[in-house]
């Protein structure tokens, strides 16, 4: 399939440079794609789609009738990340997670950062994710955010920015593993010649991390706690439990007695030591959090506080997901680590600050406005794509509750060629790497590339018509550097700016 008709539209393209030549790291792949007849590429895409249905790799869609399963669309053109660039991203993520963990520990103990006036106290106290129940608690090994899925985007200036931190229950890693599995069967030849950093050891890393948290004594029993088969991420829960070889449990499988957590088995009750929970804080324990939760385990927090069971992630990490708190992360990094942030934040206007509020209200048509405690692409206004009516609605919401809103300039996310109706077109992507905090911090090479399949759309969420791609981090940057680019491989560079 040729790239002759492929348009860059003035966007930053992950595969092609500004002159329309493949970037060095992407040369080998571009050549392979060029070498494949269109029908072959299309038929491999169909094979991938079929495999997803047959493997039942599906997610449940909320709002549609219960039990409707969809497959997450998968596009077979991968996103390529050069090795040296990845090394910098990895350093930046480690720095960020280390600082956020120190921040969480400080918030739930001495609150130096509030006493020193780095972050206004009321921002923290008014945050939905701040859990007074956790004040004074020391989590096992001093770790709060064991699993993080940070969202990164690249703007047309070429810079990678952190968009969100996701320290609660980030999902999507199972798609990284399954996508890679699929790609290896679709393009074995490319894998054989390109040195792509592997991702398949993630479940082992995750298991080791959970084991590290266990209270002392005896081989620990670890479980993954899921809200159940109707949760949108159920496939992932089941997949990870299977890959780690641990039990997948629902709240009703567990019971707290004598300060310990037990699970109901066919042979009676057995003790549980570590819980990888994929249930939000709110629903974890009806005695400690929301009393109406049917998903959780009554008394779980009591067992947790007694040190008899470990939870990953620790309750209380959601405060760092508050988008207002996000705006302070560069300061948080500086405060605890005495370093400048390696990965910058997207410039953020905090609506509870008057100057920012006025600017936001005057520039709604240019900005992206986000509710501080929403996720999944909900509660969001994309100014340039909005109607006057939508803007008026948001202006009112913001004025009613400025604390709950932030705004950011509209980024033009970078694009990757994507197979659309049998031709290749650029589509916007983001990237969610996964970070595990154990004895040391581990960053899974690459992560989940989410792609907005609708032309021109910037919303990559699966709930809003997004799909995924495999993300290839090359072992070395210089892959095929010496080989000259082939004629006809260049893409068109003219046309209006992105």
């Amino acid at each position, binding site marked *: 399939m040729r790239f002759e008709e492929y348009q860059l539209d003035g966007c930053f393209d992950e595969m092609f440079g500004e002159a329309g030549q493949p970037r060095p790291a992407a040369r080998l792949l571009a050549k392979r794609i060029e070498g494949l007849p269109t029908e072959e590429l299309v038929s491999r895409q169909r094979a991938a789609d079929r495999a997803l*249905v*047959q*493997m*039942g790799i599906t997610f449940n869609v909320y709002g549609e009738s219960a039990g409707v399963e969809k497959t997450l669309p998968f596009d077979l053109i991968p996103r390529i990340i050069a090795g040296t660039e990845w090394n910098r991203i990895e350093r930046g993520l480690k720095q960020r997670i280390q600082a956020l963990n120190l921040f969480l520990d400080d918030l739930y103990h001495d609150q130096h950062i509030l006493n020193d006036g780095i972050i206004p106290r009321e921002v923290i106290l008014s945050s939905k994710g701040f859990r007074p129940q956790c004040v004074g608690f020391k989590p096992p090994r001093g770790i709060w955010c064991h699993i993080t899925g940070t969202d990164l985007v690249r703007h047309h200036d070429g810079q990678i920015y952190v968009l969100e931190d996701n320290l609660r229950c980030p999902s999507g890693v199972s798609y990284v593993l399954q996508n890679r599995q699929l790609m290896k069967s679709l393009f074995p030849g490319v894998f054989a010649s390109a040195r792509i950093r592997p991702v398949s050891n993630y479940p082992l890393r995750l298991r080791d991390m959970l084991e590290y948290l266990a*209270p*002392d*004594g*005896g081989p620990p029993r670890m479980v993954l706690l899921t809200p*159940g*088969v109707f949760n949108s991420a*159920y*496939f992932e829960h*089941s*997949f990870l*439990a*299977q890959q780690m070889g641990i*039990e*997948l*449990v*629902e709240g*009703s*499988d567990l*019971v707290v*007695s*004598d300060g*310990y957590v*037990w*699970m*109901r*088995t*066919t*042979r*009676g*009750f*057995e*003790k549980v030591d570590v819980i990888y929970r994929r249930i939000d804080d709110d629903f974890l324990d009806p005695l400690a959090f929301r009393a109406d939760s049917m998903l959780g385990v009554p008394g779980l927090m009591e067992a947790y506080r007694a040190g008899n069971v470990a939870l990953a992630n620790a309750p209380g990490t959601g405060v760092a997901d508050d988008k207002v708190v996000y705006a302070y992360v560069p300061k948080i990094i500086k405060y605890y680590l005495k370093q400048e942030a390696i990965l910058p934040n997207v410039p953020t206007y905090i609506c509870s600050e008057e100057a920012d509020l006025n600017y936001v209200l005057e520039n709604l048509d240019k900005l992206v406005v986000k509710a501080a405690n929403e996720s999944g692409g909900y509660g969001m206004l994309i100014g340039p794509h909005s109607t006057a009516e939508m803007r008026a609605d948001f202006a009112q919401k913001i004025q009613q509750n400025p604390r709950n809103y932030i705004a950011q300039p509209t980024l033009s996310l970078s694009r990757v060629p994507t197979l659309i109706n049998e031709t290749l077109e650029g589509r916007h992507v983001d990237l969610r790497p996964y970070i595990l905090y154990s004895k040391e911090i581990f960053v899974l090479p690459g992560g989940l590339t989410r792609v907005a399949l609708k032309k021109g759309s910037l919303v990559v969420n699966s709930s809003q018509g997004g799909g995924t791609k495999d993300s290839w981090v090359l072992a070395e940057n210089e892959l095929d550097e010496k080989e000259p680019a082939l004629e006809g491989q260049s893409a068109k560079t003219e046309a209006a700016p992105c």
Partner: protein
Amino acid sequence: MLSRVADSIYWMGCYVERAENVARFIDVNLQLMLDSPDYVGQQWEPLVFISGDHEDFAKRYGKATQDNVLKFLAFDYENPNSIVSCLRAARQNARSVREIISSEMWLQLNKFYLMVKSVAEQGLNLDSMHQFFDEVKSASHLFNGITEATMTHGEGWHFCRLSKQLERADKTSRILDVKYFILLRSVTDVGTAWDDIQWAAVLRSTSAFEMYRKDHGRITPKGVVDYLLLNRFFPRAIHHCLISARESLHSISGTPIGSYKNPAEKLLGQLCSEFSYASVDEVIAFGLHEYLDGLQVKMNHIGTEIHETFFAKKTAPVRHGLGMSQFQSQ
């Protein structure tokens, strides 16, 4: 193993087996109808009786035509025992224990469901019917084979086998019973060629025709009942199913066969003993239909007790003594 997980595996196995058996008896009836002399007419109603759902059928469909019965037994989502409903339920159970069963089992069950679902959407004509029921049987066999070959023969596997064997025993008893319903309608046929054809159909629907021939030769009503009820070695014979179910039940609990620790083991053990010392003459003298009725009631009790023993949510708090060794090791 988690009680909830054991429960799901149990029902997964049961529903796959049920789907296969429904396909079996529809297919055989179909073959039978194609062979039937004109005066017998179309007999589809007995199939609804076998399934035990005749009240629901009468309410929603009325007349037992071929189309109605096929739709009800194969593709009706509202009938929980239709082939498509069984597979949907089996898949839903499998989906909630995907991390316990092998990926291959899941893949096969998912494909199986998608195949039946797509046929349910397209509809069937007479030409493609036989092929479809054959595919259902094969897909079920493939699932069983994959389960045999890829899942550890531990507790979960035994729960799957236990439910399968009990379900198969139940369905064989119902297939035997269908003769009772057909006979009632054509008393004059007894001993005729048409009667022989019907008994042969009963054997075929349990894949027993050839194996029976090797053992008994001539097809006689008594011989068929003896074979499908009391044979210890034919895999769809009720006695064989009960013996296999007992093996699995005792493997799960660790109780030696011949003794019992829970009511399920007690009831199943008693039933196996009864079968070991039963004779076909006594069964027929007692009345086959009555005997099979009693058998189904007993098997239902066993199912209830299995639920109580292994799956039911115990409300009793954890006793202090339990797991003490784990406390002390800390």
